[in-house]
């Protein structure tokens, strides 16, 4: 039984929204990074859904690159979290408030 496209899209949108909300409300940087991953993966679901519906390979290809890029982004993010923790001993975003106005 084929899953209809709208299911993919609905899941994708819900997941994306959850990720976005997570970025907005969580204080821990690591969790924020995870939420961003969630958003990217939500996009992946949309791509897979469309690729499946159109029987076009571009979408799947895109997913691969998104995953790679997401990994690289998270690696840099993690490195920054380590650096920040060493300097400021915190992993909470609202403690990062030197630069403003």
């Amino acid at each position, binding site marked *: 039984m084929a899953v209809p496209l709208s299911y993919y899209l609905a899941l994708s949108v819900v997941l994306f929204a959850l990720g976005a909300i997570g*970025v907005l409300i969580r204080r821990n940087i690591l969790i924020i990074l995870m939420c*961003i991953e969630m958003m990217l993966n939500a996009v992946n679901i949309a*791509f897979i859904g469309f690729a499946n519906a159109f029987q076009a390979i*571009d979408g799947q290809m895109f997913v691969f690159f998104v995953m790679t*890029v997401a990994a690289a982004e998270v690696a*840099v993010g993690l490195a920054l979290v380590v650096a920040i923790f060493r300097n*400021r001993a915190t992993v909470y975003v609202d403690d990062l408030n*030197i630069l403003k106005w």
Partner: protein
Amino acid sequence: MTLTIPTFSLISIGPWLTLALGAILILLVDALSKGRKTYFPYFSLAVLALAAFQTIDLWGAQSTDFARMVYVDNFAFLFYLILILGAALTILLSRPYLEEWGKDMGEYYALILFATVGMMMMAASAHMIMIFLGLEVMSIAVYVLAGFFREDARSNEAALKYLVLGAFASAFLLFGMAFLYGAAGGSLYLDELAKRLTDAATLTKPLTLLAIALLVVGFGFKVAAVPFHMWTPDVYEGAPTSITAYMAVAVKAAAFAAFARVFFLAFPAFHVNWHMLLWVLAVATMTLGNVVAIAQTNIKRMLAYSSIAHAGYILVALVAANQLGAVSILYYLLAYTLMNIGAFGVVILVARKKDSYLNIYDYSGLAYQHPGLAAGMAVFMFALAGMPPTAGFVGKFYIFSAAVQAGYIWLAILGVMNSLVSVYYYLRITVLMYMRPAEADLGPIAFTPAVTACVIATAVATVLVGIFPGWFYDLAMNSVKIFPSL
């Protein structure tokens, strides 16, 4: 099952390969050999020069390559040259500044080269995947560069803010691409999109519009358009000054390259939909940038707001969506590269001692102690303010003429009003330098040859490009012929 391997020519992406290989070499040499290496800046400059030569060699070509993933055309080449110029000037600025922070490392140069490759990919991409990849190659390198002063809390904070928000915005951009993929029925080639989207218009129009909206968000973030600009002041202030210069000019240039290419190639049929949107964004961006810049006392932060305002001006050209508009984008980005990197060069020279002198009042009386430096800064400030006969003026002139030509009289008027407001804060720096006594003895400024050369070269170029804009205009006119819709 048989596969046909598409033919391709490595020559057509020669500049990318040169820069990427150069960067890889720097990384390997840095990691695998002992001792302090001082030749990386020279090596990077040589690599950039080679890439520039390759670009010039390619000039005139007009095709696609790598299974229609890459455009090989003059529009891309002109952007290559602007990006290479930005990268080279940044490298000239960097060495003494990095040494002061004890951070003169090979990675810095390798990352700049990688970022430049990413930008070139954006400028030449013929497919959404390429845009996304280029964007991320560029962004990830720049995230790291922004946080390059690992021990500095400000640098950390800037990098993290940039990364989190950048990834956040990328997610929106990507979501937009996904919807576009759906709306176009399974293709993301820029040249196919226009036709597919109009053919399928009635049914998928909402999906297309949603995709356009999300793409505007993603590009808007990179070019720092209001309301996606919030990261800019913080990141520009916290990042190493040389990187701030680089971000302000090169990242913006690359983002506009992709922005223009996507919107002019793929969405001309939807101009009625997006022109008002960008109109509003352009006005908001110009106005907010200029107005808030007035209240700033940190020079880097002031220049950050100024860069927001300049993004607004370029958006005006994007709204105009005519040939002159496309030309003015190119011209303005060249002018902006020259004048802004020059201004940051002066900031680096004046800042000293790990950025101890970044307040605008530290510029008081600069003209009496260092007349040459003050004169250079004055040139850059006048150029940024759009005073004739500098490149900044001609750039603004092109942009507003394009807007007038396209019938956006009010947009041009608002732009002119904005540039009048902007004169206030640019001129304030000049006034401080020339018409105020020094707050305290500034002490000696170390005029290192590379930075001095960079400031002099950009100052002279800013004026020369303003006095003789014709040759670049012709080049740009030649390169924007690729947009059939303009």
